[in-house]
């Protein structure tokens, strides 16, 4: 309530997929459809998790959202702008499924580059780098070449890079893959903290328990489209998401 009038809180749609289809030309000219009509909105300040079996189109959806691939049909927007316009990615931090940083460079080099792109001063870049290195527990490895990093360290390093410019939207593709339980807890804590600051998170994962723990809403993708959307609070008992997931996948999209 604000004064006499009730003002309903309207949340802005930060990320929108509007009937998005994507067809690839595979070997020997065969067409392969990855997305068959994905419609989905992620609201400002929420954590939205996408789960789905292998080949459901989760990663394709995220790649379209970050502008790496173009949809064959349909519309995708980030805060109302097309991801094909590079400036729309200013507000986005992206962690790909298999993060590939420059092997010969150090994590500090990557963060300095991120600082230059964000237009930060040298002092601010140094300060932000130190904070992030501490956050992802790589403060002693900042000056090591990325090629000396383990998979888990690379994953955390890429997360630090994605978070460097303080994006409003974080897009994570399998952020917990290759991490040990300690690393997984660290990433979950980072996502939770980041969301508590009012930022939006969209991520896809195979680890249903993690998705259940941190998401406000969960979308189950199957055969290139969204089969159903669940609210985190609706999921009561243990493994409920898993049973719904298995049921949805076995039934197919209806």
């Amino acid at each position: 309530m604000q004064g006499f009038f009730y003002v309903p809180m309207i949340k802005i749609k930060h990320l929108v997929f509007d009937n998005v289809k994507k067809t690839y030309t595979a070997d020997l000219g065969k067409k392969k459809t990855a997305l068959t009509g994905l419609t989905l909105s992620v609201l400002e300040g929420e954590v939205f998790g996408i789960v789905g079996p292998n080949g459901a189109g989760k990663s394709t959806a995220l790649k379209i959202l970050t502008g790496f691939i173009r949809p064959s049909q349909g519309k995708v927007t980030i805060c109302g702008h097309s991801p094909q316009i590079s400036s729309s990615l200013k507000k986005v931090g992206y962690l790909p499924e298999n993060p590939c940083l420059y092997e010969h460079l150090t994590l500090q080099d990557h963060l300095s580059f991120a600082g230059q792109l964000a237009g930060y001063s040298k002092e601010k870049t140094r300060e932000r780098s130190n904070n992030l290195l501490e956050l992802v527990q790589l403060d002693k490895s900042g000056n090591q070449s990325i090629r000396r990093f383990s998979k888990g360290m690379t994953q955390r390093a890429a997360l630090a890079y994605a978070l460097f410019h303080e994006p409003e939207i974080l897009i994570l593709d399998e952020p917990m893959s290759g991490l040990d339980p300690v690393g997984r807890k660290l990433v979950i804590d980072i996502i939770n903290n980041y969301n508590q600051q009012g930022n939006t998170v969209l991520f896809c994962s195979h680890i249903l328990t993690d998705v259940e723990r941190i998401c406000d809403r969960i979308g189950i993708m199957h055969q290139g489209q969204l089969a159903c959307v669940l609210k985190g609070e609706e999921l009561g008992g243990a493994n409920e998401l898993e049973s719904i997931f298995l049921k949805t996948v076995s039934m197919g999209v209806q």
Partner: protein
Amino acid sequence: MNKLWSVAFLTFKEGLKHRILYCVFIVALLAMTLSVLISGFFMRDISKIILDFCLATISIGGLLVPFFLGITLLAGDIDKRTVVTILSRDISRPQYILGKYIGISLLTGMIMAFFFAATIIAIQGGILLYGEHYFKSYSLLAVFSSTLLNYFGISILNAVVVLWCSITTTSFLATLLTLATYLVGHLMDDVVRFIESPPPGILISMPLQKTVQATQYIFPNLAAFDHKLSAAHGIPIPFIQFSVLTSYAGVYIVAVLSLSIVLFTRRDLC
């Protein structure tokens, strides 16, 4: 503009950390040092032998940049998906392509500047060892302009690398296409000359003549940038010829990079 330079600087920095660069430096320095010693066996042509050796080293050393570093830095970016690191930020694809090109060109420039300095040192070493009278025909201007034109030729090849990497999905294919372009670019001049004035008794069909003539406008004329011979004899390149070649390189690089940008912007990555 700032972002473009950030990408260029990152590419340059990454290139500096590749081991191949140090191998190129070591081999080139060895070759240049040897040139001073070997030239002693050719008492009449000491200056020419040293310059022949050094300019050939500059040429080969510079050539290794597009073939090894250029392709590794660009096609490797797409192969290994490190391109995501850059393009997940608010950097447009044209900025990425241009930034990468500038980074690779800076690396080429640095290597050639280093080799040029080494050439001058080798010449000075030769003067000290054998005496100044063997170096009467030596012209610093000729060596400098020949090295600069060589650099422009390699810059064209760097742009060609960018083009092939924008289209292909593997670094192997990009290497093959660049090699083909290099060979055509060096041999085309001779082929055209042969087609235009064939030896008596040889008939060349009209379609073949037209195809060769059309090809010479598509592929870069890299042979035109090779002035090692005149530099070794101390003959400076005429200013007009130098200007024409510089303009040709500029126009060709702009055209190839523009095409690369158009193709790369339309491409699905990852």
